[in-house]
């Protein structure tokens, strides 16, 4: 429910964000003006000009679309596999014992480490890039889902057993809905991973993408390109996270803790 107090608070925080953004941009502008070689530290103004120029060329849209498409495909496959693995690990002790050490192992191993292997096994096309994004998505979702499944209150399951629920009914009537909020938390973390990994994935001979935009700048000493890429990636990551959060809290409101 929206209350007067909250609206007031909201306005204050928006004002705060705007002020902080202005301060950072000013600092950035000042910093680049002090640089010995301005070419190596582009100012916000020159970054903005480059962005506009790239947008007019149509390149910016192509790069953004290419990256977002890869993220969407990798994230979707990763969600599916992660949820399935997490449910199995949470429901069956043997599956958990078998898989958990590896899930924990790979969870903290960055996708960057897999680039040479991915290149050798899958080539430098889309497959290897999507595979890295799937990799960075699966384990965190599997772990969160597993924790969710195994933390369903015992009494909820016991009550259902007195109603005569079968194992399958326990699963889809209780464990699945009770785990939704854990899955969504895992997915949100995984989405963050995707934005971190897309740059690494696009090291692999890309034709387009934000990572391509950032790395191609190096060979032409066009540092502005890298800055445009960094800012766009950061803003996109922030936006996608907010949209995902708002959309899911609305769509799954009844499954979230109150």
């Amino acid at each position, binding site marked *: 429910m929206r209350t007067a107090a909250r609206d007031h608070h909201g306005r204050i925080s928006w004002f705060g964000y705007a002020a902080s953004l202005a301060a950072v941009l000013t600092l950035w502008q000042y910093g680049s003006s002090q640089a010995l070689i301005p070419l190596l530290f582009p100012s916000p103004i020159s970054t903005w000009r480059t962005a506009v120029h790239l947008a007019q060329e149509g390149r910016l849209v192509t790069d953004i679309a290419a990256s977002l498409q890869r993220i969407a495909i990798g994230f979707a496959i990763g969600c599916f596999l992660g949820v399935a693995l997490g449910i199995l690990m949470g429901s069956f002790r043997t599956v958990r014992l078998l898989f958990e050490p590896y899930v924990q192992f790979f969870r903290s191993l960055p996708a960057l480490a897999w680039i040479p292997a991915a290149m050798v096994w899958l080539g430098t096309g889309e497959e290897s890039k999507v595979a890295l994004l799937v990799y960075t998505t699966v384990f965190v979702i599997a772990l969160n889902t597993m924790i969710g499944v195994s933390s369903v209150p015992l009494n909820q399951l016991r009550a*259902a*057993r*007195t109603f005569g629920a079968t194992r399958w009914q326990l699963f889809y009537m209780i464990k699945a809905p009770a785990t939704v909020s854990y899955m969504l938390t895992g997915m949100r973390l995984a989405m963050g991973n995707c934005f971190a990994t897309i740059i690494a994935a696009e090291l692999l001979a890309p034709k387009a993408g934000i990572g391509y935009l950032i790395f191609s700048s190096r060979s032409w000493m066009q540092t502005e390109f890298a800055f445009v890429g960094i800012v766009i990636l950061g803003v996109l990551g922030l936006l996608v996270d907010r949209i995902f959060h708002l959309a899911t809290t609305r769509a799954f409101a009844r499954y979230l803790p109150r």
Partner: protein
Amino acid sequence: MSADVTFRGVDFAFGTAQPVLKDLDFQVGNGEFFVLLGPSGCGKSTALNLIAGFEFPTSGEVLAGGKRIEGAGRDRAVIFQDSDSLYGWLTVLDNIAFPLRVTGAPRPERRERALASVKLVGLHGHEGKYPAELSGGMKQRAQLARALVLDSPILLMDEPFAALDAQTRSILQDELVQLNIHMKKTVLFITHDIGEAILLGDRVGIMRAGPASAIKEFIDVRLPRPRRRGSAEFGELYERIGQSISDEVRRALQREDSLLS
């Protein structure tokens, strides 16, 4: 079908630990309201878990309606102390209709029977709320309504009012008495509250302090219902049970002290 409950020489231990229950023997007759009263940690909830089919005795046998218990079943409804047994993503009405969804009853029948159950426990006006929006007393009413919807002949109540404030507790106790005058369920009610035991029970079984606990003494409560907490007979009985149980409480406390030191 007879709905009696029998414990015959029941021992229970978790793994190789000291037994929680040792040679527990008692019977609850068909339609009887039996209260298991004891200090905390005496294993009374464990006894309820055995009859519910959540745990199994290490030796001896537990029977419901003359049949050995193989697991949880629709003939025995459970009301838990914690309202976390309600499903947070379902409305009150859907929670109460949940057992009927499990049994596969058609939707209109589910609604009709759930609404009847809502009326029985005085939850009207709250059907569309979620459990988190209910007070503690309302949550326990919802649990009771859900337990009644399958019309199980045996009700197992594990300190269902222990977490409520005194006023709400006393209202719910009175409502339960009124309800069971008509329902005539076989009830096994667990509590550590002497007043509650006298108010509700046809018979009270006082448990010894654990471990290796069993029933120390049975007391018949021959007062007409509804019972008044202030009456002289109530006070006498309270005194008598209080004396019997205070030894056990003291023993339980001594054991805790020796564990701590």
